[in-house]
């Protein structure tokens, strides 16, 4: 008994990022494991998984990219054009819908939406015309609404899901490929009042400002277009920051300093209460490849060289996973998740990039991976049972042409262009892999002939779920990578599946519906991409009720 207590108290210290009955946050929990501790559906019975309900939203433009949130048997899911639906998670019955009024005029980046956040009796939504809206969780009535920036002027909007931290709702935004200066903004959940803002590009007098040339900081990029994580014990909010602008042409913004253009292409850790920077780690100094660090930060506690450390695992668009100490931002290790990379030859043991291959102004430079990323924004998962992370990788390269461009606020600001190309040997393809995040050792690899652009979901049934552009939603054995089950959903996958339970029955839910900036731009390497189907249907699976 004493031994059991000792064991329990040890476990209590390790952070638990698993979800159970609910899927309460965008990444599962604020530690962003995308892992469910439910094991009713497992490797021995997954073959019997059947669809139990479907919900067609009607909002198919730019695909169905969301992560549903499930709390106490109710699912909250957003679609393109910032519409929100509350559904009975066991039956798919519509409880309420929130139809967002269509904004006047064009919006940058598109109307896609990657999910809502739920807390304090409200459902929070970032909109495609750059508002944050709070909706009553019970009735679907609008409670408050606040504009983050004038989308007509800034060339920015919100496509990512908000993050709930204590009594705050924190939102990032797009704008990294426009002439725009990025930031994170925190609002009060109850009143919508501004609590803090952190600019990812420091202004005059602030530390890091000296890493920008002239006035380039004013429209220097650093968009925060995906969703962050939160460690309650350290009270730190972690957020990935996007590329410096212009994307491919750096002469007008890069100083001679080694860590040019802070805090673009960095993971930042902010004090949750004040929004003040505690530490940063810049993965790609002076980015010239559009290699955002905007993706999710997975927070895990693991032993490294005999010492238990609080880690942050972060995949960069350049196809490298960076492992950091999340208490202080110290570099722990880095390893590639793509086979084809030539923008650098590697990362040293202390985190320095070596052998940079930069695009040249006015001529095509062949770079791997491409600007769409060695991984797109679709998210990785972590299973504490296997100790592995599960990553979706793209083996696609591109010809980059850098070109000086005048910055005009809100206008497209790539500073050149890219054309997707296959890798040097063999056709473009993708793969799901399992890695030990501490050693960086690949455990298994599941190859696929087109682009895998849906998130990974890991469960305690030792399954990894994801979907492909041809419409298949499938389960892999988390230990071996063997495909155990597959179902044709009728439309391609670009969203994030989740697991939850109602009345003791485990469900797996996935958005279906192809479409996004990246998925719409794949035809140069995959002419078959013309046949990948759009749509917007939520598909939900479970084991048959009789004889689970």
């Amino acid at each position, binding site marked *: 008994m004493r031994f059991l207590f000792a064991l329990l108290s040890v476990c209590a210290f390790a952070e638990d990022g698993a979800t159970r009955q609910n899927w309460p946050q965008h990444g599962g929990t604020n530690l962003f494991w995308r892992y469910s501790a439910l094991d009713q559906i497992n490797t021995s019975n997954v073959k019997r998984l059947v669809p139990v309900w479907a919900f067609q939203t009607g909002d198919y433009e730019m695909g169905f990219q969301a992560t549903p949130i499930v709390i106490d048997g109710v699912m909250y899911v957003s679609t393109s054009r910032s519409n929100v639906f509350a559904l009975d998670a066991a039956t798919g019955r519509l409880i309420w819908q929130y139809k967002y009024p269509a904004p006047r005029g064009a919006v940058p980046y598109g109307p896609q939406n990657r999910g809502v956040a739920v807390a304090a009796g409200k459902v929070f939504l970032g909109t495609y015309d750059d508002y944050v809206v709070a909706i009553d969780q019970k009735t679907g009535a609008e409670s408050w*609404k*606040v504009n*983050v920036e004038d989308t007509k002027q800034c060339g920015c909007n919100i496509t990512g899901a908000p993050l709930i931290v204590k009594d705050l709702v924190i939102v990032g935004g797009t704008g990294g490929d426009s002439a725009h200066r990025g930031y994170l903004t925190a609002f009060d959940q109850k009143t919508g009042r*501004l609590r803090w803002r952190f600019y990812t590009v420091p202004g005059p007098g602030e530390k890091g400002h000296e890493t920008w040339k002239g006035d380039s900081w004013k429209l220097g990029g650093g968009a925060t277009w995906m969703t962050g994580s939160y460690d309650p014990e350290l009270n730190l909010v972690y957020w990935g920051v996007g590329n410096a602008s212009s994307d491919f042409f750096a002469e007008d913004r890069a100083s001679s300093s080694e860590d040019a253009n802070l805090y673009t292409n960095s993971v930042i850790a902010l004090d949750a209460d004040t929004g003040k920077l505690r530490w940063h780690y810049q993965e790609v100094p002076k980015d010239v490849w559009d290699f955002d660090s905007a993706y999710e930060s997975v927070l895990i506690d693991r032993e490294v060289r005999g010492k238990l450390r609080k880690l942050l695992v972060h995949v960069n668009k350049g196809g490298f996973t960076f492992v950091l100490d999340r208490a202080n931002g110290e570099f722990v290790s880095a390893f590639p998740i793509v086979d084809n990379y030539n923008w650098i030859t590697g990362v040293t043991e202390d985190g320095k990039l070596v052998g940079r291959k930069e695009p040249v102004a006015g001529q095509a430079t062949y770079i791997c991976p491409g600007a769409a990323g060695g991984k797109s924004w679709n998210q990785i998962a972590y299973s504490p049972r296997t100790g592995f992370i599960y990553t979706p990788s793209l083996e696609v390269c591109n010809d980059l042409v850098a*070109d000086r461009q005048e910055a005009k606020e809100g206008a497209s600001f790539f500073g050149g262009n890219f054309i997707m190309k296959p890798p040097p040997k063999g056709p473009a393809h993708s793969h799901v892999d399992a890695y030990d995040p501490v050693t960086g050792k690949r455990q298994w690899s599941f190859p696929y002939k087109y682009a895998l652009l849906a998130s990974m979901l890991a469960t305690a049934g030792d399954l990894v779920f994801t979907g492909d552009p041809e419409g298949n939603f499938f389960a892999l054995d988390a230990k071996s990578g063997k495909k155990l089950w597959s179902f044709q959903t009728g439309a391609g996958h670009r969203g994030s599946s989740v697991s939850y339970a109602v009345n003791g029955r485990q469900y797996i839910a996935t958005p279906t519906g192809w479409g996004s900036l990246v998925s719409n*731009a794949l035809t140069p390497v995959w002419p078959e991409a013309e046949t990948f189907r759009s749509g917007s249907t939520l598909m939900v699976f479970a084991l048959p009720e009789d004889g689970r």
Partner: protein
Amino acid sequence: MVILSGVFTEAQSIVEHGSDVFAKSCASGYCHGTNGQGGGAPKLAARGFDEAFIITTTRAGVPGTAMQGYGTVLARPDFNAVVAYVAKLNGIEPRTNEAPARVLSAEALRGRELFSDPLRGFARCSTCHVADGLGIAVAPLAHAGIVNVSIDGDTFPALVVSRGGRRISLYDLSVLPPVQRTVDAGAVKIGEAAAWRHPAESYNDAELKAIATFLKAVR
């Protein structure tokens, strides 16, 4: 300098304006690329397109692709200008070098920049006001009637925008940016005129004068 929606700056030709609109709405590497050289979507330069084809495609889009119709999305002058620009990319000179819709003086242009100056964060006119297509329509430029309201024991200055029998909609002006709150009528107490002062401290007198010049010019 911001891209002007439906407005030409001094001495800007229709093709130059179209180039600005194109850069903002069409030129991403995911779409038609810089100067229409192609990206995820087809190249548009030197394709031998005629004007009618450019107009139809720009207006209606291409069904089944990411190319949406811009006929109702772009303001008319922007639409015409972007068509002229793509036509020019295909060797077609604009039929008229349309006279600019309006020319703003240097002082008014400076005022326009200040009105929506991004470096001031939320402390800029366009956080609450619209002029010349810029900004967020919280309140008209000349507005009185800020009152104190109480919700859940929290009293703050507010601008009431709609007052139905069941729901009341108002802007909370206690901090910038203003928050639009929509609450049950029974849950809000509307009081006397508030001792609220219009915030303008981020601008000096010369800047306010330039803004006034701009507002006069576009009124």
